[in-house]
């Protein structure tokens, strides 16, 4: 059959390429914009010869190896803990109703911006923090905060705590989503039931029978958080040590330093960061191989119980602990936003006032509209591109190449610090253009992978026969797409839209750097304020940062209930 082409099909067929280009070009150019100065080329400072001075300076920086080690260790350890806890939770609550409760509670955590989470957790665990206030002086006997170094401890424990609390929901939700996929859902449930009927305790059964099938689906999210946490900025900045800090934080401080010559060292550092991230990913891959080698024998040794009751109880405790940590962090924020003076060791503010809220709300309209505009435009673009690319997959009747699929996740895997500064440099070369446009394109880079991830499963699950019926009834491909496929995807589309919005709302570095500081969003305001000292105002902004995406998800959940109510 000769392929039918129309305006629609042509554009649809371009879209996977367009997608890749939209991601590859900025990231590539950004990397270039960092690679060149790393090797000494920075004309603005009069440096135009290639050399490796930057790398030498980097190597000679006091504590450089500690910085790299800190980044490496915290990301690996936190990811390991996250994976273990996720497995425990899944094993304990497999097929029980509790799992869906856990899913619902942890879901909203996903969309909390990292900076907000770090601030909230920092307040929870500090010696003058909420936990101490709750238990002092009646349990601990202290009237003044003890002089213990947590957060900001030199071993990065606080960083690990922060990362674990923030990334656990992500892995859990991604795994649950994978579990519910038609292809493996049936198989896994069947296997699990079979194991139980063979006498395996459910907990052990999960690890020996379900996990091997499930793990490949967890791999991509795991690599994503490995990459992210090895180069994360907000959490180590707020919760981590500063002598020395993690590598990414140090790089950012060099980029921002008043001494402009540190630029070159910073660029070299960004390249070094890339290597650290690669090393982290490689180490995890090695670790996978090791575990598989060790587990081979234990998988078939016939042992059916491994102190499962105890593990189960431990899991319950951990889950409760995590839920409480999240609830109390949130409570702390809310209390701060309404707090008059709040002296230690009171567990409740001395007075409650609404001035902070009034203060912020009176100054917020422009910030809010910026946040919304950038979010709506970037998410809409991402959604349209994603839908077209997925449609192209079906029209061409072959799946997107693995190269394309991997490239879409590129912005998530490459440390943003490594290419964002380069994009700014490229932007300066081009000159002109509205700042809004640049910020939107920057957000697009980070929203696209999540939108694609979220939409792909639903789109690919569509029953193709509906399209066939419609075609046989004389519908053109465009009509099929618009009137048959999209309506079937309305709920996933709403959810994906809310997710995209949430990702856009939480972006900090892209907004700041690409907007030249001209575009104020909720997140940039919150971070700017957190560098001042009004914790109360910061708390108000953080709560708004949380409320906005939560509102988006609420709408995504509510709208179908209202509009499609009759269809039930």
């Amino acid at each position, binding site marked *: 059959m000769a392929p039918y082409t129309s305006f629609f099909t042509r554009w649809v067929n371009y879209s996977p390429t367009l997608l890749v280009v939209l991601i590859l070009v900025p990231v590539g150019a950004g990397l270039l914009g960092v690679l060149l100065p790393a090797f000494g080329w920075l004309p603005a400072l009069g440096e135009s010869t290639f050399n490796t001075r930057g790398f030498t300076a980097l190597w000679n920086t006091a504590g450089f190896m500690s910085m790299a080690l800190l980044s490496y260790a915290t990301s690996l350890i936190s990811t390991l803990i996250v994976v273990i806890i996720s497995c425990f939770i899944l094993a304990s609550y497999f097929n029980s109703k509790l799992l869906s409760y856990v899913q619902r509670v942890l879901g909203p955590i996903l969309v909390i911006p990292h900076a907000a989470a770090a601030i909230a957790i920092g307040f929870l665990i500090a010696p003058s923090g909420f936990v101490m206030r709750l238990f002092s002086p009646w349990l601990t006997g202290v009237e003044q905060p003890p002089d213990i170094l947590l957060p900001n401890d030199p071993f990065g424990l606080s960083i690990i705590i922060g990362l674990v609390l923030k990334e656990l929901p992500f892995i859990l939700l991604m795994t649950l989503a994978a579990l519910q996929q038609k292809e493996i859902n049936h198989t896994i449930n069947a296997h699990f039931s079979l194991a139980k009927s063979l006498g395996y305790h459910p907990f052990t059964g999960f690890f020996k029978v379900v996990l091997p099938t499930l793990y490949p689906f967890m791999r991509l999210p795991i690599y994503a958080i490995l990459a992210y946490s090895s180069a994360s900025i907000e959490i180590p900045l707020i919760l981590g040590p500063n002598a020395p800090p993690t590598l990414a934080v140090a790089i950012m401080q060099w980029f921002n330093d008043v001494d402009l010559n540190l630029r070159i060292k910073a660029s070299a550092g960004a390249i070094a960061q890339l290597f650290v991230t690669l090393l982290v990913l490689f180490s995890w891959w090695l670790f996978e191989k090791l575990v598989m080698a060790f587990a081979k024998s234990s998988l078939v040794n016939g042992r059916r119980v491994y102190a499962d009751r105890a593990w189960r109880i431990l899991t319950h405790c951990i889950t409760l602990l995590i839920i409480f940590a999240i609830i109390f962090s949130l409570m702390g924020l809310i209390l701060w936003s309404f707090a008059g003076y709040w002296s230690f060791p009171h567990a409740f503010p001395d007075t409650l006032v609404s001035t902070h809220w009034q203060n912020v709300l009176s100054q917020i309209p422009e910030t809010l509209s910026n946040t919304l505009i950038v979010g709506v435009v970037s998410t809409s673009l991402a959604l349209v591109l994603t839908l077209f690319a997925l449609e192209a997959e079906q029209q061409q009747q072959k799946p997107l190449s693995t190269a394309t699929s991997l490239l879409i996740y590129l912005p998530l895997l490459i440390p943003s610090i490594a290419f964002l500064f380069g994009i700014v440099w490229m932007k300066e*070369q081009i000159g002109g253009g509205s700042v809004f446009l640049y910020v939107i394109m920057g957000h697009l880079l980070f929203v696209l992978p999540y939108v694609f991830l979220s939409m792909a499963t639903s789109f690919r699950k569509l029953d193709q026969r509906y399209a066939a019926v419609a075609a046989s009834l004389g519908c053109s491909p465009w009509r099929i797409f618009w009137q048959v496929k999209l309506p079937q995807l309305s709920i996933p589309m709403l959810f994906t839209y809310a997710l995209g919005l949430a990702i856009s709302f939480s972006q900090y570095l892209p907004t700041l750097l690409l907007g030249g500081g*001209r575009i104020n969003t909720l997140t940039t305001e919150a971070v700017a304020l957190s560098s001042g000292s*009004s914790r109360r105002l910061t708390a108000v902004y953080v709560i708004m940062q949380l409320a906005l995406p939560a509102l988006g998800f609420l709408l995504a959940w509510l709208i179908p209930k209202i509009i499609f109510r009759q269809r039930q």
Partner: protein
Amino acid sequence: MSSQKHPSHFAATRVVHQTKCGVILLCLLMVLSFAALSQVDTNTANTKQTSAAIDLNKTKQWQHILQEAQQQTVYFYAWGGDPQVNSYIQWVAKQVLERYQVKLVHVKLAQTSDAVSRVLAEKSAQNTTNGQVDMLWINGQNFANMAKNNLLEPSWVEQLPNFTLTNPTQNPAMTRDFGVPTQGMEAPWGRAALTFYHNSKYSPNPPMTLPELQTWSRQHPGRFTYAKPPDFLGLSFLKYALIVLNQSQDPQVFKLLYETPTTNSQQLLLKPLWQFLDNLHPYLWREGSYFVNDGASLRRLVGDNEILLSFTFTAPDIPAAVARYDLPVNIRSYAMLDGSLSNVHFVGIPFNAAHKSGAKVVVNYLMSIEAQAKKQQSAVWGDSTVLDLSILKTQQQNLFASSSQHLSALPVSNSPSLSEPHPAWVNLLTEEWLKRYGAH
């Protein structure tokens, strides 16, 4: 008989002759004085004419700038961590919109170097006319850096009519930033001096000098700290210590602080500081193993009761923080008896600013009597004025009279003012401090 002249005749002739000389002399004198006087008159007339011409030129120039500035949107890149400062800038924006039809936008920075990076990036991309930064709140090291790299517009401050109100000829601090000449690249905006504050409930007797600080910290271990370099406030504490600890040195050695450091002066002047810090650190918060990143965190720690003593550059910040519930009501401010590090902070215009005229109009307004008086009110910002009150009229001076003092505000003190060392010491201090106490 004709040869015989009468002697009186002779005398008379002599008198007449003398009179004639006298008259001629007198006339000559008169002519000369008239000439001289008229010359003087001409000179004054000339001077009046020249200064009038200059004034006329300046006014014409200023009128031109005012006209160009209308309808412009000016982007003011300034630290945004203090809500009071932000509100003040909003107030200024309202005023300049009403008066000059200039729209002022406050771009809130987490740190000033963000804006410096921006201008640098623009320069590297050969953007010489369309810079995004129109005005920049800077001083000290930031200024020195930008000046070194030619990132600031030179010689524009004299164009501003209100600059004369600062009486720059009598007040050299208006044209020197940490001792480095400003060359008209930045206009003075306000003054700051290092002020200490303590929690009077848990620490009723605060240290009043640096040696007392040492003793106090042994009595209250873990209740004091400072921000680590390169933070501005942390460095200011170190500079204060540096100056006070070296005051006992030979004056020739001491004045090396105000010049570029050399290997020799480094050794001589920094040694007392490291000794002092080595003795102090074990009694600091977290035993000196962790220092907060920025000065703002210090105030948070005081509010949380984690530390009992701290310092700031903006004294009026403290009563404002108490009013905002960020600090307890028992906080009291004071100035160290052995001196307070003082400086002036400025506003600069980048070389490639897109809206230079608008920026100049705004800066001029910032230096106006009205804006400076408002800024000095403790309920607004409380930042000291840079205007020379002695050249103002009495009713204008009254605008600057302080209203009722807040309990926690800084009382009038006799603390001597310590000038900032040469900016090159800042980098040096940072490097050396990080080497000793930084990365482990």
